[in-house]
């Protein structure tokens, strides 16, 4: 193979090109992983809800923090046409006194379906009262499975029974608890420091507790086959807002702007990568104009010459992809776990596919010059 002979003949030159491609690949992959890390860090707990649809209180603009559905409303959703299964999801702010440092995060109360949480350490399933399954990034705060953590200022405790993954919300690890624990945390939060006093001494507290009973923030719904999110929205009417978990994830907390920025970064890195790779091969093509003219004068078709270039690109981009993936993985391993870095294989596969595409697009510059090289110039010795 001509293309390979040339690479082997000029090892240093082509090694440098492969390295440069590798750096570009590493850059695109790292940016992709960091972007992905940012987005899952911001929304993982919302977007990964095991549901076809998420039902919010109407007119809350898909704001999880503000949405509130009463027990009666939850039942109405559960009973609606097209709903196969439904479980309430409660959201509440908590402050955790972790060993390393205290931090603010959220607890999610799930009415059921704890099987949706992938367990990376400890045990899964429905936690009992006062227990929690926590996103594994809590390890960075010194939290371990089995720890019992004080929640401030409400004088409650949660015991960590297992770690799950990709379940952060606004960059903080979410604590998953059962609905009873969730209600307890809510009531305690409402009364703040007064929570130490018993309910019996405060008639108004009993009143509030009754009202809170069975209410949640949103309802996660699994639809019957053939029923769409829009169908459910139609059925439920204006008192509710119905969206997919992905739409829910991208609403609020500045996510629309953040997603724009993140996509912008990736598009820019991709375009620059395509240009740089294209220019590399364009330069090597320009460098060989005389040789290409001679080969064409000997009877090589343009297709033959272009195939050689494509073969070289294939070899060098594959080398570059290996180098780049290695560098990106190394960079990821070197980053602290709190850093948003989420190397997702499917995304990287897409990135790699795009790198081959960029190289191909870049090769079109070269194709143009290959087509333009006049084989007759091979006989003009004066120019050489």
């Amino acid at each position: 193979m001509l293309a390979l002979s040339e690479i082997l003949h000029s090892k240093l030159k082509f090694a440098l090109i492969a390295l440069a491609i590798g750096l570009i690949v590493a850059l695109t992959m790292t940016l992709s992983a960091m972007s992905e890390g940012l987005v899952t860090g911001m929304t993982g707990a919302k977007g990964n809800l095991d549901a076809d649809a998420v039902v919010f209180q109407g007119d809350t603009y898909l704001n999880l923090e503000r949405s509130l559905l009463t027990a009666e409303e939850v039942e109405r959703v559960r009973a609606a046409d097209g709903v196969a299964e439904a479980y309430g999801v409660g959201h509440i702010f908590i402050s955790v006194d972790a060993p390393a440092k205290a931090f603010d995060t959220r607890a999610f109360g799930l009415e059921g379906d704890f099987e949706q949480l992938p367990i990376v350490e400890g045990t899964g399933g429905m936690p009992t009262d006062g227990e929690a399954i926590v996103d594994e990034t809590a390890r960075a705060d010194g939290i371990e499975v089995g720890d019992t953590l004080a929640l401030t200022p409400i004088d409650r405790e949660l015991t960590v029974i297992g770690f799950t993954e990709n379940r952060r919300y606004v960059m903080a690890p979410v604590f998953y608890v059962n609905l009873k624990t969730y209600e307890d945390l809510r009531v305690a939060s409402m009364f703040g420091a007064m929570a130490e006093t018993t309910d019996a001494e405060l008639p108004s507290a009993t009143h509030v507790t009754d009202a809170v009973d069975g209410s949640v923030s949103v309802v996660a719904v699994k639809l019957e086959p053939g029923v769409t999110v829009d169908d459910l929205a139609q059925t439920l009417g204006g008192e509710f807002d119905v969206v997919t978990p992905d739409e829910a994830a991208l609403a609020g907390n500045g996510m629309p702007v953040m997603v724009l920025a993140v996509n912008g970064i990736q598009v820019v890195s991709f375009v620059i990568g395509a240009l740089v790779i294209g220019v590399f091969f364009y330069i090597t093509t320009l460098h060989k104009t005389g040789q290409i003219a001679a080969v064409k004068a000997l009877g090589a078709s343009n297709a033959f010459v272009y195939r050689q270039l494509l073969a070289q690109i294939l070899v060098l981009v594959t080398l570059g992809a290996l180098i780049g993936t290695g560098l990106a993985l190394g960079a990821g391993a070197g980053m602290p776990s709190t850093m948003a870095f989420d190397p997702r294989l499917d995304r990287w596969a897409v990135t790699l596919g795009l790198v081959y595409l960029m190289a191909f697009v870049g090769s079109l510059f070269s194709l143009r010059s290959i087509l333009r090289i006049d084989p007759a110039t091979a006989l003009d010795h004066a120019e050489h």
Partner: protein
Amino acid sequence: MSLLQVRDVSKTYGSGRAAVAALDGVTFSVETGSMLAILGPSGSGKTTLLSIIAGLLQPSSGEIVIDGDPIHLRSSRTAAAYRREKIGLVFQDYHLIPYLSAVENLLLMPRLAGRVSAEHREKARGLLGEFGLEKRAKHMPSELSGGERQRVAIARALMNDPEIMLVDEPTANLDTERGTQVVTMLGEHVRGRAMTCLMVTHDGRMAEGADRILRLIDGRVAESL
């Protein structure tokens, strides 16, 4: 029998006041198994003539006839196929592929047409032997002398059994002794085969090794010996 006929070929570069008539009504023919030297001063149109026969340039008028068939090269693709199948081209500065060994440079020719077979390798070795290069087969062009490179280039041009060998200034970069040697070898190869060889030179001594000499002056055939 004349294998190659050049019929009333003219070539004008440019147009209007900048027009240069490089060839003006050139007519001649070459017999099978013979070698023709084209002799002429600089700018007389030698390279232009070679380029037209090689299908690298279109004549402004006139035609090239091979084996009785006028050639028509409408696209770059048919021109490339024509060069692969009918023409053996030797450039003045050889244009060996620098990253291919001598034998791989020969194998480039069948590679352009498709696959390289064991017979091709056999043939390449045979040609290298014929031109005294059997010990140089694995050498890279940078490791060869000027005369050796010249012979590799000639052997390469012969790889596809061309009907017409076109050789541009084969001896420009060689001393007279080596130059004559190369021309003699080439002549020996051509004679007795179903091919002809056109050799461009401005050195009269080299032309002596040819069967006939065509003298070009200002784009016209001045003398045909």
